[in-house]
């Protein structure tokens, strides 16, 4: 491997975005979706996750540390790009810029979300359940903040999955890349629906 760390860091960034962060995002949205059945169903699902063995280790190893690297290196990547959408308004160029914009939006959202739920639990012992989310989302501002945050995160994941396939050389031909565009569009629609449906169940 080349002596410099750029190649390694870029590939690590791409890898972590899918494993484990992307997998965690999907799992998180699936658990949240229990809120659409009933508050009890959500509380049961959330408590199941809470009681997983070695939870702190799982959280640090599979969420916090990978996410921190992905976020910090991602900001660096985002701010080395120079948008030229005005002159080159092609579809992939839009996706390129949106990937960077949603990355930053997602980071802002996640920082707030972790503060409000996980850190509040760690510091003040706030119980994480359906009522907590219902309370947060009863404010229209927070509801829309969450909607934007969830859609940004899902977009960033779905489109990131597309570029993951290119970055690791899974999709080489234009045809295969187009095929994966449709697959990731499906991922975006399905998980956006699940996220929004959960938020609506919490709020109303």
């Amino acid at each position, binding site marked *: 491997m080349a002596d410099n760390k750029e190649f390694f860091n870029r590939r690590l960034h791409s890898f972590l975005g899918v494993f484990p962060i992307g997998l965690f995002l999907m799992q998180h949205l699936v658990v949240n979706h229990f809120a659409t059945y009933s508050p009890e169903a959500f509380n049961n699902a959330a408590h199941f996750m809470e009681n997983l063995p070695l939870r702190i280790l799982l959280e640090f190893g599979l969420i916090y540390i990978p996410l921190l690297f992905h976020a910090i290196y991602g900001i660096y990547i985002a701010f080395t790009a*120079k948008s030229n959408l005005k002159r080159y308004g092609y579809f992939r*160029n839009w996706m390129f810029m949106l*990937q960077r914009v949603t990355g930053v939006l997602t980071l802002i959202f996640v920082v707030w979300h972790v503060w409000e739920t996980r850190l509040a639990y760690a510091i003040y012992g706030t119980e994480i359940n359906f009522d907590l989310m219902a309370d947060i989302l009863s404010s229209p501002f927070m509801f829309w903040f969450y909607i934007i945050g969830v859609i940004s995160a899902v977009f960033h994941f779905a489109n990131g999955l597309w570029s993951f396939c290119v970055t690791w050389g899974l999709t080489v031909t234009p045809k295969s890349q187009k095929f994966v565009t449709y697959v990731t569009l499906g991922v975006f629609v399905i998980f956006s629906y699940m996220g929004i449906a959960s938020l609506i169940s919490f709020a109303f």
Partner: protein
Amino acid sequence: MAEDQKMIKMIIQRQDEPEAQPYEEEFDIPYRDNMNVISALMEIRRNPVNAKGEETTPVYWDMGCLEEVCGACSMVINGKAMQSCTALIDQLEQPVRLEPMRTFPVTRDLAVDRSQMFDSLKQVKAWVPIDGTYDLGEGQRMPESKRQWAYELSKCMTCGVCLEACPNVNDNSDFIGPAALSQVRLHNSHPTGEYHKAERMEALLDEGGLQNCGNSQNCVQSCPKGIPLTTSIAALNREATVHSFKSFFGSDYHV
């Protein structure tokens, strides 16, 4: 003829020297049939008078072959980088706006210094080394289908349009851009060039290399030669994946 002479309106971004402030100057150029941007610029050179009727300095630009194989006359025409020799006035919206490709250092008016592209080709060893202390003999033959495929990649004229179109090639980044990447693929596919595959791969993954591609795919949309740049990049990504796994803890492979 002089009565109803059709005129072309051109707005040209000018710059007197590398560090000078750019400014815009308008020109009205008498229309002739089948004009291209270069013939319009030549008309300004013949009669350097701007739209206000003031005497001005002739607009400076680079050109060479005048048939889209040298790449020297590339500039930004109505927002998109292309060669001014094949940019036909009849196909352009007026006023025609000309700017230099600001991804590169501007030397004067529309001329830029593309040295960085040639340095990148050196960085990735985009050549087939055959010079030595003894005669290497004849090279291997290449299958015709592969030759035809390689010919497409060899059409690159280092014009810089793909770098100008790439959002990741700019002052904040060291990215060498799509052109040099595709040349690695070309030279790695050559039967003799293949001997130096591993060296090129090392150079390709060095600072500013392949990993800086952000997949905006503007390059493949902009390339005047229709080179499948993004396919080259994705194929190199695949090779880089294999290469990095093989050499993660160092490597004993030499090709």
